[in-house]
């Protein structure tokens, strides 16, 4: 067995998959919930950046993980609220507004990194706190499975709980029902007295909430510092994930798992004698391939069965 294959079949690989999947899953849930309400949020990149940065700086200055967590969440939600304000109130195109916010987030975090850490690249001079790892009692002693599932950062378990939370919000609350109705037929929602813009705003704020966790995990779990543009396109990969997952909880989780696996694979392959530029290309390449295959499939399906939904609703 080749060393690469051996290491991929090891429990450490399974562990790594869950680790790299975590920020993708959070971001994907953020994209999914806004998409459910019919507005596509491509500002997850920016949301994660401001949350990651805020979390690191606040934790370094206050020494409190709880305050850092709250600050990070608030920062992410504020950015989502700004998107809502531009799009819903000022009627700006949501894609353009989100691109602007992504660039704003990238710029302001670099600027503030320089102010606080006197370095334009990373905040490594600041002592950031990190979220703790959790060893799950019983499970950790199961061979192999224990090695894969136990000992993760608390936010990795949080991501799995977030899938459940997303499911409950969307399918078990009146808000979720309204979000779905607004996404499917805003006129129908409006005709029964639902404030469409308000529901869309709530969905965007929730999107900021999920995305903020992704950012916090990146800077205070995955590593322990903020680095410029450290999201590295995860906010966009999340869009691919949700498309593949059909915006549904389990689908989004499985798609995240797939992309997590590809990312982990890229890390493992990096140990071989392959140019690193090529290796870091793999996750993006897979994104493109998966989306292409998916949309061809979807079109075939559509051609076979014309959408009935369009005709009268």
């Amino acid at each position: 067995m080749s060393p690469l294959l051996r290491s991929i079949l090891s429990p450490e690989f399974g562990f790594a998959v869950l680790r790299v999947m975590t920020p993708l899953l959070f971001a994907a849930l953020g994209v999914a919930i806004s998409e459910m309400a019919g507005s596509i949020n491509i500002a997850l990149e920016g949301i994660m950046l401001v949350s990651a940065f805020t979390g690191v700086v606040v934790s370094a200055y206050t020494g409190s993980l709880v305050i850092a967590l709250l600050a990070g969440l608030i920062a992410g939600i504020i950015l989502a609220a700004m998107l809502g304000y531009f799009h819903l109130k000022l009627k700006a195109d949501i894609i353009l507004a989100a691109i602007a916010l992504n660039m704003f987030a990238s710029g302001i975090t670099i600027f503030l990194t320089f102010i606080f850490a006197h370095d334009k690249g990373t905040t490594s001079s600041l002592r950031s706190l990190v979220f703790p790892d959790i060893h799950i009692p019983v499970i950790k002693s199961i061979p192999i499975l224990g090695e894969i599932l136990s000992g993760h950062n608390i936010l990795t378990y949080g991501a799995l709980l977030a899938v459940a939370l997303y499911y409950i919000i969307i399918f078990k609350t009146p808000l979720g029902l309204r979000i779905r109705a607004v996404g499917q037929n805003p006129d129908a929602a409006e005709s029964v007295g639902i404030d469409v813009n308000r529901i869309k705003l709530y969905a965007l704020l929730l999107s900021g909430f999920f995305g903020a966790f992704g950012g916090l995990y990146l800077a205070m779990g995955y590593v322990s510092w903020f680095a410029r543009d450290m999201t590295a396109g995860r906010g966009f990969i999340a869009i691919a994930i949700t498309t593949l997952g059909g915006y549904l909880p389990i689908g989004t989780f499985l798609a995240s798992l797939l992309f997590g696996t590809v990312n982990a694979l890229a890390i493992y392959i990096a140990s071989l004698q392959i140019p690193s530029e090529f290796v870091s290309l793999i996750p993006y390449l897979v994104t493109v391939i998966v989306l292409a295959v998916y949309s061809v499939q979807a079109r075939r399906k559509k051609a076979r069965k014309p959408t009935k939904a369009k005709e009268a609703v």
Partner: protein
Amino acid sequence: MEKILEVKGILKIYPNGVIANKDVSVDIEKNTIHAIVGENGAGKTTLMKVIFGITQPQEGEVFYKGEKINLKSPHDAIEIGIGMVHQHLMLAPDLTTAENMVLGIEPLRGKIFLNIDKAFEVTKKVSQDYGFDIPIDKKIKDLPIGIRQRVEILKALFRNAELLILDEPTTFLTPQEIDVLFNTLKDLKNHGKTIIFISHKLKEVKQIADRITVMSDAKIVTTKEASELTEHDIAYLMVGRDISFERISPPEKMGKPLLSVQNISYINDENVKLLNNVSFDIRESEILGLAGVEGNGQSELIKIITGLLKASEGNIYIKGESIKGLSPRVIREMGIAHIPEDRMGYGVADKTSLEENFIVDRYYKSPFSKIFRLIWKYITNHSRKLIEQFKILTLSSKTTVSSLSGGNIQKVVVARELSSEHEILIAAQPTRGIDVGSEEHVHNLLKNTRDAGKAIFLISADLDEILKLSTRIIVIYNGEIVAEFTDVPKISGKYLGPYMLGVKKQEAAVG
């Protein structure tokens, strides 16, 4: 009889200056089915929007159960017991019947969670109360249209509607579904509900209504008991107006057929047959008028002839050559010019200049461009000539089209199309919404085009226009050609009406 709704002296002028309702007054009696009929654009829908709070009139009052009401939104209307079933149903396709039913007034479990069991329960109860047989746990998109419409009616009933407005409810239904709907409506009447039924289909109106109001030209023509009116009466009241114009003289001689439409059928994505075996020829120096109430397949026919839509069956020949599979540009180059019915959507790019609009169909040809460069000097000259020739009122040829008046925008389209190299002109609603002077001008241009030996296909919702210009008239109803008249000077709008409304049919004209 007790009145549930009284509408008095409604005046509604839209911001673009269109008068949609003028001095409209009508009483709706409680526990009746009241039909409001009229051609498209007669003002029926605007009146309903006023009653349902979607739009507010400039003048007039509405009384509901004797009290004056002032509705700001549909939500207000629902609150007091007015429900509306829109032509395009207001349902979320991926939600179940029960979920759609409780949307906005969801039953709760433990103050936070949606109580889906309760939603099923109340939906079941209300559907049983009214004797509706609908699956409550299926997604809307998996239900046939007739059932979806019942869900929509039930939704209004669930919100305690006493007055139900149905806007053209039979448009997407099969004859069998229409029967079911009508039984439902009669049942609802027995439950004490009042129904306003908007339609332009006379047969249906006669079949279901207790009272009938006819609208025409933004005004109420009459309100009568259904038993006092025959279908012919209604047709006359809807479209038969005095004709006070001079018909243009017929062409001296007509040549060979230029456009030949053969057995065209069209079935849309929703599997509805919108055109059924349509055939006709148009000859040199002939204006063929297509009369019909809008929405009977005219738009699809125009799009098929100009290559914007693919026919399901049949073929079209330009000077004997089939246009099957050809692009609109190639079809234009074969000799078709097209004044589209949707001026702003298909006729012009309104954010660009007159010059640019004049050359969109010819920019790639010499002398408008050479290799990869547009020859602006030539284009400007060309544009100035068109502006002068077609008497377009504009500051310059570089003015943006959107700053012109409707009539002048139409002239821009007409100028471009008539100045293109063509032998066949498709003129759809060529004078819609433009002033009388411009209308006269366009009519003269059409006559000149005809006299130059070209074939013209004239499609218009304005019967007077059809009668004034046409050499020959065909009538379309429900996607079929139901009549053909060659002796145009002898016929009147009153005579065409029954054919346009599907009351009469010439057997010979079909096929």
